[in-house]
């Protein structure tokens, strides 16, 4: 909060409360800002309201029961005022999502080509050839084979890591300005996790898309995030650069999170990108 970015740098700024009918609010006046091209980590334990925030941004809150108040300004428009049609045009094109469990997030009954095609057709029109080109390009950009044989596979015929890459390929197909990764690596084994983290980082660098990286795991966030916001019991308790958070955690909850981290990571913090590389390659 001390780090207010210049107005034109802001991609998304939100000040939002979400409550479900007849219950305690899930998010209480959460204030968050994402700058263009940055990777913002959102850390909190499960039940803290992380995913609710992601869904609020995408307009995918359970419409009847959840009420969102406040503003979510994205590219100078308030998303909370958007109609369903406007939201649909936004999803997948300007803001996209990658969910936690890659196998559950792909439709088991469809070939991945079909799913990628659907994602493409949601925001583009063109010939079958245009579509095929776009699919190949996005598969290539997540380092997956782009050949027909691979495209004909069903999700059940792939590894978890491959499935997660397919999801990312779907998410970046239309070059969104913001990608929300909701626990996108939590279900993966350590090696795959670091590979996917590296992929996110690289996509962030090469395309300049901002990433809202949501995780319960401070350690995994640390490696790729420019700034980190700590969400605790529906409110942002602390926000700052990764370094600030790690070296001078202010809030008592952040301190507890830090205390829970394995020591080795903390001591190696400076050389962390290298560590990551060593693990990944």
């Amino acid at each position, binding site marked *: 909060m001390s780090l207010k970015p210049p107005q034109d740098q802001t991609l998304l700024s939100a000040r939002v409360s979400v409550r479900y009918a007849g219950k305690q609010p899930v998010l209480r006046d959460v204030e968050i800002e994402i700058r263009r091209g940055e990777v913002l980590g959102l850390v909190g334990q499960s039940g803290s309201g992380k995913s609710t925030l992601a869904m609020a941004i*995408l307009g*995918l809150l359970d419409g*009847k029961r959840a009420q969102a108040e406040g503003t979510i300004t994205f590219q100078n428009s308030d998303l909370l005022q958007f109609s369903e049609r406007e939201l*649909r*045009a*936004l*999803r*997948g*094109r300007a803001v*996209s*999502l990658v*969910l*936690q*469990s890659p196998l*559950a*997030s*792909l*439709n*088991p*009954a*469809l070939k991945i080509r*079909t*799913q990628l095609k*659907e*994602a493409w*057709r*949601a*925001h583009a029109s063109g010939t079958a050839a245009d579509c095929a080109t776009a699919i190949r390009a996005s598969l290539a950009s997540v380092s997956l084979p782009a050949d027909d044989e691979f495209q004909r596979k*069903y999700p059940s015929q792939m590894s978890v890591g491959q499935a997660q890459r397919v*999801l990312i390929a*779907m*998410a970046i197909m239309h070059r969104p300005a913001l990608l929300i990764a909701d626990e996108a690596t939590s279900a993966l084994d350590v090696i795959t996790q670091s590979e996917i983290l590296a992929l996110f980082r690289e996509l962030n660098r090469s395309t300049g898309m901002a990433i809202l990286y949501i995780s319960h795991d401070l350690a995994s966030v640390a490696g790729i995030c420019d700034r980190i916001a700590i969400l605790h019991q529906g409110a942002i308790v602390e926000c700052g650069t990764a370094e600030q958070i790690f070296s001078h955690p202010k809030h008592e909850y952040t301190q507890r999170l830090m205390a829970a981290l394995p020591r080795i990571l903390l001591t190696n913090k400076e050389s962390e990108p290298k560590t990551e590389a060593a693990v990944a390659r």
Partner: protein
Amino acid sequence: MNLWRKLACVILAVVLCASFAANWLAPAGYARQYREATNAAPSRTHWLGTDEIGRDRFARVLYGTRISLLLAPAAALLSTLMAAFIGGLAGYLGGVWARMAMAVTDLFLSLPWLFLLITARALMPLNVSPLISVLVTFLLLGLLGWTTAARVLCTTAGSLRSADFVRQARAAGVPGQRLFWIHVMPNLKPVLYAQFWISIPVFILSEANLGILGLGVAEPMPSWGSLLKELEGLVSLGDEPWKFVPLILLVLVVMSFQLLLSRHDEVAA
């Protein structure tokens, strides 16, 4: 294509061709009564013998196949599509829609069908051709047979609505209609297949039983249902094995269809 599927293909092709070539294979037709040779055993003139009133069973099986093999799957398709549409859509939309659809389904299940069918028969003129009668019957079966499957589909589709891949697809901006058709429907396939395959023999038999209400195929036209009726009250199995031909044919055809189409389903699942 494995051996079984080839076999299924051959069986279906033979059955279909034979039924369409009935005019040539059994030129005397299904209604001709050989009154001097009733209840006859198979012979050179009557390959499958004759029925109680001396009609050539082979001809009746061929013509009956033509009727049932076209109409039963058509009715099954109709009921399956209705179940998919009503149950699937309501489940996918959830909330009020699901409750409404379930209320309609409950209503349908609790309606006194017997009386409605009797009324349906009463509304039809007595002088209808056998073909119209059987068409109407299968249409009714198709229009009425969707309810139980719709309930299952509604629940299944309801759980799919909150599935991660549906959420993921929505987040990718896939519009609602396509979500339903592309993402929800294919996952209802197993239920739909089951509904379809169960419906075929059920409809074939229901058609025969509706004869009690004056619906169904009318004499002298044959259907598998009316041919299967011959097996009613058959005391011993061994004496007249040729009487089982319609039953064997029904089992063969349903199995062949299943073999042929379920492979595709297996890969998908």
